[in-house]
């Protein structure tokens, strides 16, 4: 290892690798928007970033964004328009992928950002869906980003805000959902991918410095592994340079 990186920086770079050149991506704030910036500066110079408030950009915004509606995200944008116009692109194969996070994700990639506990008497009322269900339903593929803790990667979410593979198998297709579903869950310890006809998420790759036992022990379901569990490749110098160029203040370095 010739260069230092934080766990968060590794997650950003793993996320950036999910973006192919020329793709149109629904980019959230924080970690995914940084990943988008890294991808644009490295292997995906022609990617397009979409923001559900009604913004599409080629070049990432200059400077730190607190919300997708901030001025720097609109200055010089490819398009500032309405939510229907932007989110409507999800249909018709015009959007390749979306990034979303959540409070909970389950073994079939279903995501909860709505209620912990009972709907009518919730233990925690989470902020809600935003546009995540729409992106989860329609994008060609979904990238889920979440911290790897037992209460976050759970057997079954209390509330499916954004559908993954629902009860697994072909349940998603039967429900009439056009997009293919979540392709990957990127955590701070590992990368999980859907396996076989059940579409249950299995361990696909472990981040450097972590072990299978630790990952399984921090997962809320009986996590199985792909036949060959890889080690997540370390960030390259080019990737780290791009990230440092974007994250000038070192927000993600700790």
């Amino acid at each position, binding site marked *: 290892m010739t260069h230092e990186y934080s766990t968060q920086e590794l997650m950003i770079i793993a996320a950036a690798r999910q973006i192919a050149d020329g793709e149109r991506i629904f980019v959230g704030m924080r970690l995914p928007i940084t990943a988008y910036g890294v991808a644009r500066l490295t292997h995906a110079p022609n990617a397009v970033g979409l923001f559900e408030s*009604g913004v599409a950009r080629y070049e990432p915004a200059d400077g730190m964004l*607190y919300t997708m*509606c901030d*001025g720097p995200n609109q200055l010089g944008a490819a398009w500032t328009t309405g939510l229907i116009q932007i989110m409507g692109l999800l249909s018709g194969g015009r959007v390749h992928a979306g990034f979303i996070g959540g409070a909970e994700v389950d073994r079939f990639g279903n995501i909860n950002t709505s209620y912990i506990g009972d*709907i009518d008497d919730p233990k925690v009322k989470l902020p809600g869906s*935003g546009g995540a269900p729409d992106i989860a*339903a329609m994008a060609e593929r979904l990238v889920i980003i979440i911290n790897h803790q037992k209460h976050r990667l759970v057997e079954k979410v209390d*509330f499916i805000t954004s559908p993954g593979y629902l009860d697994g198998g072909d349940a998603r297709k039967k429900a009439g959902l056009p997009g293919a579903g979540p392709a990957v869950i990127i955590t701070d310890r590992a990368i999980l991918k859907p396996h076989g006809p059940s579409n249950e998420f299995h361990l696909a790759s472990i981040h450097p410095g972590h072990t299978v036992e630790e990952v399984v022990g921090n997962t809320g379901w009986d996590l199985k592994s792909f036949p060959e569990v890889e080690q997540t490749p370390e960030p390259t110098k080019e990737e780290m340079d791009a990230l440092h160029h974007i994250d000038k203040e070192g927000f993600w370095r700790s």
Partner: protein
Amino acid sequence: MSLSEAISTFVQDGCNIVLGAALENAVPFAATHELIRQGRRELNMIAPISDISTDMLIGAGCVTEVTGAWVGNVSGGMGHNFRRAAEKGLPHPIKVNDYSNFTIGMAFFAGAYGLPYIPVKTILGSDIMKSNKNIRLAEDPFSGEPVALVPALKPDVAFLVVQRADKAGNSHIWGSTGLTQEASIAANKIIVLADEIVEPEVIASDPSRVLIPGFGVDAVCHVPAACHPAPLIGKWKRDNHFFHDYHKETRDPADFDRWCDEWVRDLPDHEAYRAKLGGQLEDLRILGDIPSAPANYATE
């Protein structure tokens, strides 16, 4: 018309209100404050996302119903008042009508353009189909495939912030607009909060930049920085500290009350609010000028 007068004229207790439909910019916080000051009750707040506006109104006891996709503090974390109301019924219980951003967009679109409902696919498989009893699962009669029917939403009143308007409410908006157009046209009454009042010729010089025509507007109020602490493209930067402080200072009900007295109830109007912000607001004012290329409307 003053904002106070517009609200006392057009907003009654029990109204269904859209207060900002552009998501995180151009949120009409000045109207949020005035609704709290006038003590409106049993409001149904409808919006995809209105940053901390909905949380404030819930904390002040104005709200019994929330219709939308997201309530919280976009840069600051969860909305304490929203959580307290939903989890503990404080200051009183609220009913939450969950939508996703696109489905509430379709509900506004249907309401705006006279369609009874819209069949969508983007909410299939989500438990929002179970929690929101207004949305029905049905079969697409053409293909036999499942489809979710989202009925039209027709709010009573919509508030929107625009960069500039003339006295008749003809106005210009630029930057991303979220669901502003659909939500406003769907509403029975439209109240425009104009950051700047300009001569009619300025608006008429570019009719393609008009989002809602003046003849559809019921009141136009001149309220500079009505969006604070949210940003307004080309006019005001976002006050990120304010959102952060709100999160810290509203953790429990007594704290929220203190915050709300200081920033809303103890101030007579938005002019006093701007004066209280003073230099903090001036620092947010956009002084630069990066103008759009002109469009030519000449006919000869």
